[in-house]
């Protein structure tokens, strides 16, 4: 899926940015909760909204999910530079 732009926090991806989840930096409860919403390592995510403050909207596994900033901060993603992810719809 094209070249990658290094590992960063999900909060650092701009709206329209895409990435692949590399790890979740939290306790077991947090990891389990995130997994139930589709966030696991290797999953492609697309940021639909990120205003630099407040919660984010992220598309993951056919679902739009609102994610608190604190929670998004704990998600490490590898940014996809070319943005040709196969799964998620491109938000505006």
């Amino acid at each position, binding site marked *: 899926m094209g070249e990658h732009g290094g590992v960063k926090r999900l909060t650092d991806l701009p709206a329209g940015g895409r990435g692949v989840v590399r790890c979740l930096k939290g306790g077991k409860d947090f990891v389990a909760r995130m997994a139930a919403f*589709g966030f696991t390592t290797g999953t492609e995510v697309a940021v639909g909204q990120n205003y630099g403050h407040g919660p984010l909207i992220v598309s993951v596994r*056919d679902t*739009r999910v*609102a*994610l608190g900033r604190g929670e998004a901060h704990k998600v490490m993603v590898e940014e996809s530079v070319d943005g040709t992810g196969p799964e998620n719809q491109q938000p505006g």
Partner: protein
Amino acid sequence: MEQARRISSPGEDPIVPEDRVITVALAGQPNAGKSTVFNVLTGLDQHVGNWPGKTVEKREGICRLNEKDLRIIDLPGTYALSAACAEERVARDFILRERPDVVVVIVDATALQRSLYLVAELLWLPAPVVLGLNMMDVAERHGVRIEPDVLQAALGIPVVPMVARRNQGIRELMSAVQDVVRGVRPCVPRRPAIRQDHRRELESLCRVLTGQVPAPYADEWVALKLLEGDEEITALAGEWLSSERWQAIETILAQHEDGVVAIASGRYEWIGRMVRAALVRPGAGQVTVTEKLDRVATHPVLGLLVLLGLLGSLFWVTYAIGTPLQRWLDASVVHAGAHQVRAALVGRPAWVTGVLVGGVIGGAGTALTLLPILVIFFAAFGVLEDTGYMTRGAYVVDRFMHPIGLHGKSFLPLCLGFGCNVPAVFGARTIGDGPQRLLTVLLAPLVPCSARMAVIIVLAPVFFPDHPAVVVWGLVTLNLAVLALMGRALRRFALGGKHLPFIMELPLYHVPHAGSIARSVWHRTLAFIRNAGIVILAGAVIVWTLSTLPAGRIESSYLAALGRTMAPAGALLGLDWRMMTALLSSFVAKENTIATLGVLYDVTGGDRTLDESIKGTLTPAAGLAMMVVQMLFIPCLATVAAMRAELRAWRWIVVEIVLLLVASFALGALVYRVALVLGLGA
């Protein structure tokens, strides 16, 4: 309770052959359309309550199918089956302990991958699973095509495509359920396994657990939950196992901290295999209606405007339709009824009339006149939930709610509190998550409702003729500050302060379905009458009895006596027994304060108005203290009844009343002292 019926299998027990009631548990993630399925199945024949000892809603109903009754249990909507929240514990405990004959899981066809996560967990529990593939129409509109037969073959359990909102596929779903119960349709699920690199650890855990796990738990499920770090199962296993075995378990777990990741990955690998053949998906890049609408609805500024606009229209509808209806009911039903009863009771002792007219008719009238407003709020909430907007509203205000220990979902219910606290309490039902909902219910009475505003709007100009608006504004601000402080304190000290991650699905927008909204309005209204109506009636009778006995006059009544015993507390605030009595009478309805003061200051007898009489006995400082107490005083009877109906436990309500009593008097006293220092004592 169902145990006995279930154990007796046909043939063994001649009294209950074939006829035993089949129990079907409905599971599903939130927004998958589970409630719609439940409503279609059970019609109006359902019972709404709470799960024992939990603030989680329990819905149960009977579905008549081919001359047979099926008992349908609506499990709470959950994304998974961990121990992290009450809803998930309730769902899995029910399946484990009550062993339903079949678990029907409703899956959202538009989000198949994520929805199957719950199925991956359910297949490990000891009940056959039938999968209802819902919202096939929406999926098709979005270009997602699913082959139910292929999915069925892959999963090894019956898969029924359906559109619950249009009543399509539900009959087929239920006949699949009956086939599974009768054993004519195979249900041999292919369960997900843990990720390859953790299989050995799982096996060693299972070996240690062999023979140690009591029914209804299964070794492998327990092993999986231990690896996941499930608090509840970890604690239970600690009790079941000898210390040597427990040590062995702990050693394995300590080496594999990432077990939870391996299990989740294993589940998604399995999901990938299941959907690979069944899912025919279109090319990416399509901008959906939902995304277009969300550009406005979730925008930090525009989204707030949308939310405030909706809230404004809701209040407008309430005042334009609800309030006139309320007045009409009050005049033509309550007052006319009271008049009739009074006429019929001529010559009887005054207390009989007082209790019957004031207590019974007054109490029933309070419940009755609340109905128009409640129906409007229930309908509005139904529409907002059904369209999918509710989560957007919650998203936009989320950051403003964190400082008071709440999430965005509490915003709308609490806002309703400005109209009336009762719908605010009921509105908390939409929050879903237990502690959040409890906290919202407990904070709702601190939102200044219109009845309390009416009282301070009358009293403020009496004591502060020059600046009544400033005083009213100050009181409202103080009230909201107390709300924020109490929210933080309760979150921190009473609810464990546990930070629940804020993750919320934003479902696709739907056109609301009138039928399902009407049904939910009907059930909620019925539940209000059944659960809250009786408490309101009883409370009104008690307070009215206290305020008329023994002599039929409030000034010499037991209520006034109670007011007199409270006078020493009132003295700290510069208030006399009459003010205390007025506060007590405001328990039935907040607006009673003014009416009681009118009677106690004998407005009709003398030639002075209420303003003059009160001003003659109270200093501005005491007046201010009175208003502070009035604003923060214990919730009104209808609100208490609503809280009781929602929380199903008096414990928290008692805590709440004590907290508010202390807070209102302490703050009243503080304000009084400060006001004295500022020279408002004369």
